[in-house]
């Protein structure tokens, strides 16, 4: 069966390499049939990759230990779901997932835009180039189809990966990472074909939004996974691999904002090209960090030899993008200019600068250990204070700008109009800030500022919906509900964006509450003893062991009460995995609906005499972070939802004959 997988990958490599070479020649020499042939090769690469993926999945499902990859990442006792998820648990499988998603996305994107032949003719070789790299790696450097005599049992899966989030978090991230290839390929295709109109933006608008949403949701799922599984009490540790997903997301966020300036004002064409290339190169860099093991990370499960290849490819793609943008600079000149520094487009520009600054400072923090080791021979790394400093420096103004932007008019805003629109959000923010100071929240300045700015942004969002609905009612004479729904459905990108802003407000409040205002206590408890933490009483009442499918579990029983009333029984403990020879912390959490916060318990140590070393974290408002995820998805869906009227208009713009047919 491994032979079929290898053959399918070789066929996929042949197809994407043909798409690259024949596609480039066809686009250069304007050969129609050859361009269609290259396009077909890209389409055919997807089923070929699907065959390879199915072979690996079948091998994982059957625990066919003659496949080295299967033997390294599964065992006979590993439950089927996790065995199948081992597809993306290791390097070779992850690369295959990259290629599978890339060829699937490429086939769909090319097919959907098949009418724009002159643009797609150049998009095909760019997609072919990226796919060729991954197919080559899978065929000759890091194949999941290497076989060897089967051992008696496999090495199993790292215990922290044996979690339901393993089924969703990595694929989500890859859907996001790989998705950024599509806008990149269309942007480079536009430059190569000298079509610097907005066609490529229109073609990739939803792809960018979808990739950005997957990346955002993937990160939140990863954060929740870390929170419930890793067992240190946090959800984000500025780990290099976590940062690797955050950086392209930040670059894509900047792009999603600045591309609106190009659509509305015809400005920032060069900047948009730079951002889309940056987001793509950072997504490659993210994969490189995750899979190469070049930096120490809780996510880098293996050291490997693919680092040099990846680094080389990232350098090639970066040089290719920079050279292409440079060569096409004369075509990218804007004919309009920023009219005022106090305007909507100016706030977008400030937002872009802050997002890119945050992205680059995180990048510096990630590459610093690599550079220090390469240049000085000693590994130096930056830690949480570095990242926290820049998060406060750039993140807090970003939060404030998120409230300011929607209140400012396009092109130019007068002070009088600004005073009128700012009055309510400003008053709300001041009232919230003063109330929090009076309530004793002043001991954390970043926390206090986050709450105050979040109040400003929230008021601004509510006001936007309220004023928009009122304006529509006055124009169309509709009921309040109809005016509201029509307002959103006729301006999906704008109001979907505001819903996403609301998600960011919830996220900011959740992060501030659970980090700046959390309470942590640790104590050794004998059976029957209690400890007090932030108004909760936790009493250790007993200990039990039980056998799981592939682990031995020990669980303490801890009763939680508040104000003398019992509210929950928690079971923090540990799992011992005999095959993997590892022990994992199994945390237990009480979600308090009253505070939207958590009582988070960790059994740090359990002595043979039954003494429990209990660590308790009370994290106010932490659940707003996960609620923000749901709001984020809702907002993204609203923004992405197709608008038939808009699509007809764009079809007529780019294919007038087809639109009239």
């Amino acid at each position, binding site marked *: 069966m491994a*032979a079929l997988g290898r053959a399918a990958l070789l066929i996929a490599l042949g197809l994407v390499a043909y798409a690259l070479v024949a596609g480039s020649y066809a686009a250069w020499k304007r050969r*129609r049939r050859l361009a269609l042939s290259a396009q077909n090769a890209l389409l055919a690469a997807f089923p070929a990759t699907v065959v390879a993926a199915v072979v690996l999945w079948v091998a994982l499902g059957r625990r066919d230990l003659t496949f080295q990859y299967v033997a390294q990442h599964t065992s006979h006792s590993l439950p089927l779901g996790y065995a199948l998820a081992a597809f993306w648990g290791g390097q070779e499988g992850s690369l295959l997932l990259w290629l599978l998603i890339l060829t699937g996305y490429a086939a769909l994107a090319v097919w959907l835009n098949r009418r724009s032949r002159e643009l797609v003719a150049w998009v095909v070789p760019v997609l072919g180039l990226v796919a060729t790299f991954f197919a080559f790696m899978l065929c000759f450097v890091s194949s999941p189809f290497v076989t060897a005599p089967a051992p008696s049992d496999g090495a199993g899966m790292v215990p922290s990966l044996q979690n339901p989030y393993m089924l969703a978090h990595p694929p989500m991230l890859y859907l996001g990472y790989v998705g950024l290839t599509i806008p990149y390929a269309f942007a480079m295709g536009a430059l190569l074909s000298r079509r610097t109109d907005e066609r490529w933006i229109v073609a990739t608008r939803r792809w960018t939004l979808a990739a950005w949403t997957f990346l955002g949701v993937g990160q939140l799922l990863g954060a929740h996974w870390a929170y419930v599984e890793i067992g240190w009490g946090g959800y984000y540790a500025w780990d290099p691999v976590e940062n690797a997903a955050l950086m392209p997301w930040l670059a894509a966020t900047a792009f999603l904002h600045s591309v609106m300036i190009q659509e509305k004002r015809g400005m920032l064409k060069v900047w948009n090209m730079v951002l889309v290339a940056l987001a793509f190169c950072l997504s490659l860099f993210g994969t490189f960090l995750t899979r190469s093991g070049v930096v120490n990370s809780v996510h880098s499960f293996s050291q490997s030899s693919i680092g040099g290849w990846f680094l080389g490819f990232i350098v090639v793609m970066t040089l290719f993008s920079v050279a292409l943008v440079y060569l096409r600079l004369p075509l990218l000149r804007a004919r309009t200019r920023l009219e005022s520094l106090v305007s909507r487009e100016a706030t977008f520009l400030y937002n872009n600068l802050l997002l890119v600054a945050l992205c680059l400072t995180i990048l510096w923090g990630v590459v610093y250990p690599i550079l220090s080791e390469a240049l000085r021979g000693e590994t130096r790394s930056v830690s949480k204070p570095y990242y926290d400093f820049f998060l406060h420096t750039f993140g807090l103004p970003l939060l404030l700008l998120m409230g300011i932007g929607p209140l400012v008019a*396009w092109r*130019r805003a007068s002070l009088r109009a600004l005073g009128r629109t700012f009055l309510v959000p400003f008053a709300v923010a001041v009232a919230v800030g003063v109330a929090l100071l009076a309530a004793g929240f002043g001991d954390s300045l970043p926390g206090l500022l986050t709450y105050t700015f979040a109040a400003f942004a929230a008021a601004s969002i509510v006001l936007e919906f309220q004023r928009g609905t009122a304006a529509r009612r006055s124009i169309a004479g509709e009921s309040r509900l109809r005016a509201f729904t029509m*307002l959103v459905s006729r301006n999906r990108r704008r109001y979907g964006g505001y819903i996403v802003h609301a998600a960011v407000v919830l996220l900011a409040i959740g992060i501030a509450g659970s980090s700046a205002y959390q309470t942590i206590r640790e104590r050794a408890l004998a059976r029957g003893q209690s400890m007090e933490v932030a108004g909760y009483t936790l009493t250790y009442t007993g200990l039990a062991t039980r056998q799981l499918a592939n682990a031995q579990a020990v669980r303490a029983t801890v009763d939680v009460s508040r104000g003398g009333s019992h509210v929950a029984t928690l079971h923090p403990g540990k799992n011992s995995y005999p095959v993997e020879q590892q022990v994992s912390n199994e945390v237990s959490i009480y979600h308090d609906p009253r505070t939207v916060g958590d009582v988070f318990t960790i059994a740090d140590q359990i002595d043979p005499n039954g003494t429990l070393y209990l660590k308790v974290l009370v994290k106010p408002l932490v659940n707003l972070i996960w609620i923000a995820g749901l709001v984020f998805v809702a907002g993204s869906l609203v923004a992405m939802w197709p608008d038939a009227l808009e699509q007809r208009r764009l079809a007529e*713009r780019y294919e007038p004959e087809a639109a009239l047919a």
Partner: protein
Amino acid sequence: MAWALVLAAVLAVLAVVFVARPFLREPTPASDRLDEPGEAERRRLGLVEERDRALAALKELEFDHRTGKVSDEDYRRQVGALRRRAAEALRALEPRVDAAPSRHPVDRERVP
């Protein structure tokens, strides 16, 4: 092993046929030239984008004025220039607009 090789061979043959399909369907085409927009088409696209931008900006300005984000004074100062820009783009596109006057949704009244 043998069945795997047979499956792989079938996959390879299907792929080759699919890739060769444009040549098999049109062995001797009248023209094998890949169309690209000429100067006139590029100019039309530029003008259509400019027209759409100007019309969208006008609608946005009206809406911002109604919601209070744009003062009366700013509105009066900006609306004239935007109308002129939209009119210029429409005039430049006139032959095209004559050819398809009723199909353009932007031309219809649309409340933001």
